[in-house]
């Protein structure tokens, strides 16, 4: 569905995107991760034909994004992070306006609006003025507007930004439903837990470059195979001593101690007997031991250093 090759984009002397390539198959959900200033929004805007790459090429559904933007825009639903709303419109009028923009005929407009509002749980509030909506409902409405022409591809920039936990869960559920409908989705978000449950693939960026990309499950497995996070509970007064002893083991790549007396170990091997042996030799009582599973947060933290463009 999307192929991008060696994209570069600079604003004056600031390189926002450097040599970024990606591929998204039809029906995939790609999560874009990265610290602030990593170039996520610029990349999304280039995919949405709102910015043109300085070099490199983007092909969406077989059309070149620079030379055939119109063909792409017809297939695209873009939800920006920051958006405006025409004043003095109620929800129905707002949806009518965008349905008309999308070129839906008068006959099909009402049913399309109903479907989009239904999907976003906004049905039945047609007369509510848009300007009076809560942030969560505004996000839903924008999503409904994005869906009105039934696009094949959805590009969503921070759809959960500014939402309370309940609204976030609701938006997440809507996105899961959309992914279930077979839509191709590219989404950026700071809320990694949301992405973890939605995305099949992930692309992590930093300072305009891709630092990690691939299928989420595979990446997690790879990370788990290389770096396993193990939490060992010892008596708090012996925690520091335990940490010094364990850190000397070759399989332990990092070791920290938290305030409750838990040792947080990153192990490159799955056999933890050497750890236990060292602790027993030092006469340190092991109160508990847990192996943490890898998640997107772990992937993100381990892949990025916090650099920005």
């Amino acid at each position, binding site marked *: 569905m999307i192929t991008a090759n060696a994209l570069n984009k600079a604003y004056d002397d600031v390189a926002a995107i450097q040599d970024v390539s990606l591929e998204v198959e039809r029906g995939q959900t790609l999560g874009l991760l990265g610290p602030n200033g990593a170039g996520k929004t610029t990349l999304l805007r280039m995919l949405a034909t*709102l*910015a043109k790459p300085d070099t490199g090429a983007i092909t969406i559904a077989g059309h070149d994004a620079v030379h055939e933007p119109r063909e792409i825009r017809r297939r695209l639903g873009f939800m920006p992070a920051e958006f405006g*709303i025409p004043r003095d419109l109620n929800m129905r009028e707002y949806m009518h306006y965008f349905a008309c923009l999308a070129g839906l005929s008068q006959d099909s407009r009402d049913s399309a609006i109903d479907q989009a509002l239904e999907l976003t749980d906004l049905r039945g509030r047609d007369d509510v003025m848009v300007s009076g909506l809560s942030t969560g409902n505004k996000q839903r409405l924008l999503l409904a507007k994005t869906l009105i022409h039934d696009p094949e591809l959805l590009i969503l920039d921070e759809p959960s930004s500014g939402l309370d936990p309940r609204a976030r869960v609701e938006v997440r559920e809507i996105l899961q439903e959309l992914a279930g409908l077979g839509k191709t989705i590219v989404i950026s978000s700071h809320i990694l837990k949301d992405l973890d449950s939605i995305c099949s693939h992930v692309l992590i960026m930093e300072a305009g470059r891709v630092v990690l990309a691939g299928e989420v499950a595979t990446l997690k497995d790879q990370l788990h195979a290389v770096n396993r996070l193990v939490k060992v509970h010892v008596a708090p007064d012996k925690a520091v001593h335990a940490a010094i002893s364990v850190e000397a083991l070759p399989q332990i790549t990092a070791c920290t101690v938290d305030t409750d007396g838990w040792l947080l170990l990153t192990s490159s091997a799955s056999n933890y007997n050497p750890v236990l042996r060292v602790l027993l030799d030092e006469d340190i009582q092991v109160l508990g031991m847990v192996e943490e599973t890898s998640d997107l947060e772990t992937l993100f933290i381990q892949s990025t250093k916090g650099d920005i463009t």
Partner: protein
Amino acid sequence: MATTGRLNAASKRWRTLINSPTWLRDATTVTSPWRLGFWFLILNTLIIVSLIFTYAKVTTDLSRYRYDLAVVAEMGLGRLFSGTIFLALTFFLTIFVPLRVAGVFLGPRVGRYFDQIVLSGITPWRFLIGKVIGQQAFFATAIAVSLPYFILCLSFGAVSFWEVILCATMLFVYIHVLVVVYLAISTLLSEIVALPLVIGVFFAAAIFGLEHLSPNPIGGMTPVSTILGMFYEDTYTRQTYTFRGGFGSLGLTSSNVLLYSILSACTLGLGSLAVALGPINALANGLNTFGAVVFPGDKKRSSWLKRRFGLRRQAELSFLYENNSTAWRACDFRRRWSLRELTFGLLIASALIWTYWLFPPFGSGFYALLMFLCICAIFLNIRLFADPWMAERLYAKRFEAGTLNAMHFLGNSVMIWLGFGWLPAFLGLDVTPQDAYRGSAQLEIQDKNLIFVTQFVLMGTAFYAIVRWFIVRRLSGETSAFLALFVMIVLAFVPFWVGLFGNLITPLDSPDHELWMMMGFPLMLIESIESVRWLGYRALSWSASFYTVITLLFAMLAWKRRQQLPRRRL
């Protein structure tokens, strides 16, 4: 069968075109009770004030000039009042139609949803046609509001239903001119400039139409002159006292309304062409991001100077114009490349037709077009004809945008100089304004015509250089192309005032008088060609030297201060 299919397809395309979201938005505002009441109040006030004013003026004049007694006696109260109402309507529409069209781009941009409009894939035509339909509805509302007055006028007698229809037709054409000219200017320059510019120019033209200055091509831009024909048609005062012959003082007849419509159709055609072509993508694509644009030195600039309304807007508009069909976009280069020559050719041809066929007794058609084109092309620097092919190649060489503008500007000027300066003289055409020259001065006017155009070109170039220097010195080189044009228009009238002022304060035979007149020479002609008749070739050499020095000086200063655009990456 095939014909039916084609008809159905055409009908579907038409329905899609008029199914404009802009009209969807406008419909509620045109028909909302509050707005209807507002228009009603404004229009009624205007009509009543105009009626009182006209009546007071006529009764005052009655005591002074016996001729006007004949005017009123012949025209009747119904005619006087209906003419006044139509004049009030003209001024009302001149102000409110551009105001209502304003914001077609600015509204979504300020409201931050223009990107959503662009991404909907809507074509510029379908987006903008809604504004045209909206103004038609607005016009219908204005006519409906003033309908009781017309019924009253008809009951007074002396005015026919047909005359009312003719005036309404002209106004209907006129609102389209206002809308299309506004959209064309706002597409190519900036809405912030377009609004005062369009209102100001057409308002001034309406005043010129009222005043009957001679020669008066500007007055012909609005239907005022023809509506005014209601007041004097078939009265002997036309020949003797108030009104002079020439375009702009025509009677209210079907043929003159048709003529006005044809001439307006030219403006509509050119305006539509400008709207269809849109901004110069080759330049706008340099800022190939929707939204923020950063330039060197921005960190040091105040936030106001970083905004660049003009260029950012053009860049964003070019994204909207990408929604035109692929076939249309593929021909973009050829259209722009050939249009300048084609348009100038057509205008020269139509000027000849106008001069020889439509206005044989006046002989001022060519002159009128010449004036109009000089003002448009030189002082507005018509970007419509700029050549993106050349711009793209020069852009890649890091030419400054202002230099490109200057090149387009000079290109247009040379075209005018050759076409309107030399051609009439070469062909021995009569470009004489009827009431300005008579008899033996026929040959002299051809030389004057050349002088006149040459001076326009020189003066325009000088002003362009001054303004460019000011802009690049005080602001960013790319900040305010629209500001440059705005200032240029303001400056263009300085010599006009200097000339007029000089004319008033100095004796006619003093050398100073001649000096002032030379400086203000070209624009003085708008007021009256008679006043500079005696100047001859000395004016050309003097002002040519003057404006050349100014051009060189400020061009050098602007070049020294130039800012190059960032290199475009393709």
